[in-house]
């Protein structure tokens, strides 16, 4: 496999980081295409990076980027991949937050902010349902749905902290194996 220069690797992650919208899955799909096209990463290593990224805490796509960068150029590659894919996007998010704060007292901005906030909440609820839906296979929906609803009830009704709910889910997952 060709070993790219650090600048070429950084450039790829920077370009994908600022041009791909929609979160982790589209980003990983674009990176996969680019890696295969350049012959930087084998399908076997891609599969291990993808699988382990799902088991790594935090944002999956960043763990995947670190793993891919590490496979390609070691620690320097992992650092370059994560920094290049997050710094420009983070600057843009800060700018968007500043823009909101500076314009929040204008009636027009307030009207737009109200509808944006409603969309953000709808997006959160939709993302929660999507997370479970995409994991449900035909005839195997009981476990995902039951654990999700139980977590909601434990947090919203029983008032357990998120960490307690996550701990309970881990125990349930250990003793309730997937069929």
């Amino acid at each position, binding site marked *: 496999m060709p070993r790219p220069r650090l600048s070429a690797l950084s450039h790829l992650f920077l370009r994908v980081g600022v041009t791909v919208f929609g979160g982790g899955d589209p980003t990983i799909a674009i990176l996969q295409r680019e890696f295969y096209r350049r012959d930087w990463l084998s399908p076997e290593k891609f599969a291990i990076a993808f699988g382990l990224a799902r088991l790594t805490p935090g944002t999956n796509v960043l763990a995947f980027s670190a793993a891919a960068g590490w496979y390609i150029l070691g620690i320097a590659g992992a650092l370059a991949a994560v920094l290049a894919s997050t710094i420009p996007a983070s600057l843009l998010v800060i700018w968007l937050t500043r823009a909101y704060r500076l314009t929040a007292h204008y009636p027009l901005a307030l009207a737009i902010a109200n509808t944006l906030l409603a969309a953000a909440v709808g997006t959160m609820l939709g993302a929660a349902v999507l997370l479970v839906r995409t994991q449900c296979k035909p005839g195997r929906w009981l476990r995902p749905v039951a*654990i999700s609803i139980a977590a909601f009830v434990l947090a919203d009704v029983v008032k357990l902290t998120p960490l307690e709910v996550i701990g309970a889910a881990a125990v349930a997952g250990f003793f309730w194996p997937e069929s």
Partner: protein
Amino acid sequence: MNFVVLYLLLVKATLTSFSGLASLPVVRNDFVQHRHVLTDRQLATAVAAGRIGPGPLGIYVVSVGYLVDGTPGACAGWLAMITPAFLIIPMLRFLGVRAEHPRARAVARAVLFAGAGLMASAAVPLARDAIANPLPLGILVVSFLVIAFARVDSLWVMLGAALAGLVSFYF
């Protein structure tokens, strides 16, 4: 808020979640409910800012950090977002194929499903704050349906919501 404390609180949230927005309940618990350094509305603003721009879903923690403590806070949020990613390197070295063990996968997926329930739980109070009249309620419902059941990029949902706000202001 002290930079280190802010970083530790945010990294606690990112380290205990397994997808971008799943850290939201821990963030809300610490910053809105216990320390009162953020309001539900500001938290929803951070989520919206993270959704409008490119990048991963978890990037909203940068906005949370910025809203709590300006530029240093944004840096703390950015560090908290990227820190867990590097855990995968020792995992690649030492776990490798063992991470595919059915029991390990079952536990990880159970935590993922719990994240969905927690996310919905965190959205409930934000929804109460966001729904001031029928228009936001309609936008919330449409956004929910589009994200949950259609393959539409959330950027278009946000742009559509902004357009609806613009139109409602003039008409």
